[in-house]
């Protein structure tokens, strides 16, 4: 199962064609490849309107050695468009199947679901966001997690330029042994590509790649 996941992630890296928003413009497709110390994920979604997106998400959770395959729906609950800033409130939910390769649960398959809210505010200089999520995967796992980010752009780029953000992410997973993870990261954004890279206080690498087309 892990091989399949890595193969899929590898394929994702070669899709030819951002912002990390869970809903795109009407008719827009998005591929999100996310990796950090806890998990690897691939999320492919389509936005029929600017209000919601539908997609498929594959996650591999490293500690529990299990995967979750879900159909995910993201809803833009509210957007605040201001003259020099924008804020958003989203509901992100998924239902599907979890499969474990780990110890007592080796070979076990359970129904899985998650839901959570995400909020962000940004202008061209500053960025802040918050996100939470509760996941239920039957006997395999259930957990709550939340994360927040702040960011600053060291320069203001014009449309089409390479945009750079310096960010700090704090993730809190109450049930985890190391329940706080702090990750300074760099976000680079140009054309349809958004790349984020950083290293956490636990020494784990964060690498995210988002492609909109």
């Amino acid at each position, binding site marked *: 199962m892990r091989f399949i996941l890595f193969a899929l992630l590898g394929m994702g890296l070669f899709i030819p064609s*951002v*912002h990390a*928003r869970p*809903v*795109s*413009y*009407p*008719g*827009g497709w998005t591929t999100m490849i996310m990796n950090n110390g806890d998990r690897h994920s691939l999320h492919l979604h389509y936005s029929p*309107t*600017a*209000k919601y997106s539908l997609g498929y998400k594959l996650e591999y959770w490293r500690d529990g050695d299990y995967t979750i395959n879900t159909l995910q729906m993201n809803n*833009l609950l509210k*957007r*605040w*468009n*201001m*003259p*020099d*800033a*924008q804020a958003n409130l989203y509901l992100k939910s998924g239902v599907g199947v979890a499969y474990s390769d780990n110890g007592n649960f080796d070979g076990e398959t359970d129904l899985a679901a998650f839901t959570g809210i995400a909020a962000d505010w*940004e*202008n*061209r200089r500053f960025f802040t966001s918050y996100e939470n999520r509760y996941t239920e995967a039957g006997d395999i796992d259930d957990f709550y997690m939340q994360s927040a980010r702040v960011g600053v752009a060291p320069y203001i*780029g*014009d*449309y*089409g*330029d390479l*945009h750079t953000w310096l960010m700090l992410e704090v993730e809190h997973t109450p049930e985890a042994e190391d329940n706080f993870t702090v990750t300074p990261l760099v976000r680079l*954004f*140009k*054309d*349809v590509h958004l790349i984020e890279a950083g290293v956490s206080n636990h020494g784990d690498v964060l690498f995210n790649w988002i492609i*909109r087309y």
Partner: protein
Amino acid sequence: MKNLFLTTILVLALSAPAYAMHPGGTVNVDINGLVCDFCARALEKVFGKQEAVDNITVNLDTKIVTIHFNEGQSLDDETITQLINDAGYSVEGIKHDE
């Protein structure tokens, strides 16, 4: 006289391509929520599907999107507002070129 003739030719030569590029006129739209390249790209995608639109240019500093129309075509203010709302943004004002 020769200089005047050459200058006139040069001015015409430089202005003709500009006219040919946007023969249908332009509209400037002041937009709220325009904070990033992705916002601009969303509007490009939405207006790019409109037959009346040749192309758009986006100025993130002024938050103004300039819509260049094809010859003999245009969109009314209501349609422009609806397209921008559908893309997830809001219109502050619309100004037609005179």
